[in-house]
């Protein structure tokens, strides 16, 4: 290994170690932060506040463990709000198989706090294959497409599903995602039937949703970890979103410092080369 390459490797290891130590330290000792909810987050919160209690809310859980760091706290904040507001909801996955099970763990852990029970206050439809054509069919016949819940109980025997037949009985769909699943909901549910849509996505996907928000096709956006922290503030709970804000702050600052350092080193090298050449 040449000296230059060994130096680059050493620098890389130092960066990895710095990031690891920084994130670990800030996760162990988080600093309390004050969050001001953005208009997009506030809009989703207000929409849920005004939803009729007799309608079911669909939580489309289009994420898996890879994006749990962001989508997990979002799901938690939204379930907190739905439990608090007394809204029935259905956990539903159609992109990633583990999604409904991961969301179920979150709902199970939060339910005792609000005295909520599976089957009466929420239901888990599990994962359904079939993509967009399945979503089209779902809008027309929910019990016919879902058939049974995650525990193999017939949907028609679950109290939370009482009176739920098709899109008319759905108050809102909230797509919590780490992938581009929103387009299908917009095309086949919001666009065709006008069912209100909410969106919670990973930070990098946020900008893609703003045209939909601007056009009124989605009611609000919970964007990344910061969005879930803001949502927690609105719901009045202390969750992982706020707890992890210190880590995210530290990581962002480190990356900015690294970019500046990299550019300063580039300028130094350029000057040296100019001196050597001149």
């Amino acid at each position, binding site marked *: 290994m040449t000296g230059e390459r060994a130096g680059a490797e050493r620098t890389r290891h130092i960066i990895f170690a710095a990031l690891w130590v920084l994130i670990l330290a800030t996760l162990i000792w988080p600093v309390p932060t004050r969050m001001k909810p953005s*208009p997009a987050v506030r809009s989703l919160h207000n929409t849920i506040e005004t939803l009729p209690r007799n309608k079911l809310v669909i939580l489309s859980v289009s994420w898996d463990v890879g994006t749990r760091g962001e989508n997990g706290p979002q799901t938690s904040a939204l379930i907190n709000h739905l439990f608090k507001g007394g809204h029935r909801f259905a956990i539903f996955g159609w992109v990633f198989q*583990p999604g409904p099970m991961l969301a179920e763990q979150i709902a199970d852990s939060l339910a005792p706090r609000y005295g909520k029970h599976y089957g009466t206050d929420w239901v888990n439809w599990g994962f359904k294959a079939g993509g967009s054509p399945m979503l089209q069919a779902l809008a*027309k016949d929910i019990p016919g497409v879902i058939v049974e819940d995650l525990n193999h109980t017939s949907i028609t025997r679950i109290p939370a599903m009482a009176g739920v037949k098709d899109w008319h009985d759905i108050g809102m769909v909230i797509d919590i995602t780490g992938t581009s699943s929103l387009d299908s909901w917009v095309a086949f549910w919001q666009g065709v039937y006008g069912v209100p849509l909410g969106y919670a996505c990973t930070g990098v996907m946020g900008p893609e949703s703003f045209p939909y928000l601007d056009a009124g096709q989605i009611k609000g956006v919970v964007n990344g970890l910061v969005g879930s922290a803001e949502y927690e503030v609105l719901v009045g709970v202390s969750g992982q979103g706020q707890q992890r804000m210190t880590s995210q702050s530290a990581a962002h600052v480190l990356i900015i410092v690294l970019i500046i350092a990299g550019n300063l080193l580039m300028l130094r090298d350029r000057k040296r080369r100019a001196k050597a050449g001149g």
Partner: protein
Amino acid sequence: MFVPVHGIKFWIYIAAATGGWVALLALLHLLPARHKRALTVGLTFLAGLFYSLEFYLPAKARWLPHGKNPVSPLVVPMGSALNVVFGFTIALGLINLALIHGRNVARRRAGWHNSVAFFAAMISMVVFGLWQSYTPDSGKPAALGLSCAQVHRVYDVLFTGLFQALGATVFSILAFYMASAAFRAFRIRAAEAAFMMASAFIVMLGQVPIGRALTNWLPRHGTLSQFRLQELMNWILNSWSMAGVRAVAFGIAVGGLSMSLRIWLSLERGSFFEMRETKR
């Protein structure tokens, strides 16, 4: 449209459907390539036509037969049929993986032990996943000397203890690469790069409390409040970035439309049989 059946009738239907499909597939296999192609092209066109008519025809109109969209009632059974097709794709994926990794193990290729790990992971996840799914979480004995609760425990270890942790680990490695790439690759070599870096700094700092705190001294309302980092970030994302995203989305939509038409009409090169024919 379809009425569920139970008991012996259910199993007769299953056997008849399986036998029918096997016979049909055997018959199709005997067809010459050009007839197979014509059949595939025809079915692709019909499937595309079905969803196009369902989407573009109005739900109700006087000029439609019986005043309603005639294909709409078929959307639900079509969705169920597609569910079955997707089920087959999962099976195909499993068979393909098993063949590739089976060959690796049989021929002791480099890294064959990874293939053994694949089989161990796949078999244990399939067995315990299905087993726990059809077993109540109780102290009753299940099978192989395990109680029902133990079956659930093993599944928990596999899913929560291994799958979740491993998946999250793989994804979190990205953060380390991003930090390293930020140091090595993000260099200001032109005015555009400087502009991009300034925007990136504002968005990154505007996303987190520490960045927002930097401009907390500015008033909350009035003209000066627009210079708070959070407001600047919102302005960049909602104006500049959104215009770009809209343009990209529009381009993708137009491209997607032309691509869909090509696939629907089987004009896409390499679709179906051309690849095989080219190889020959």
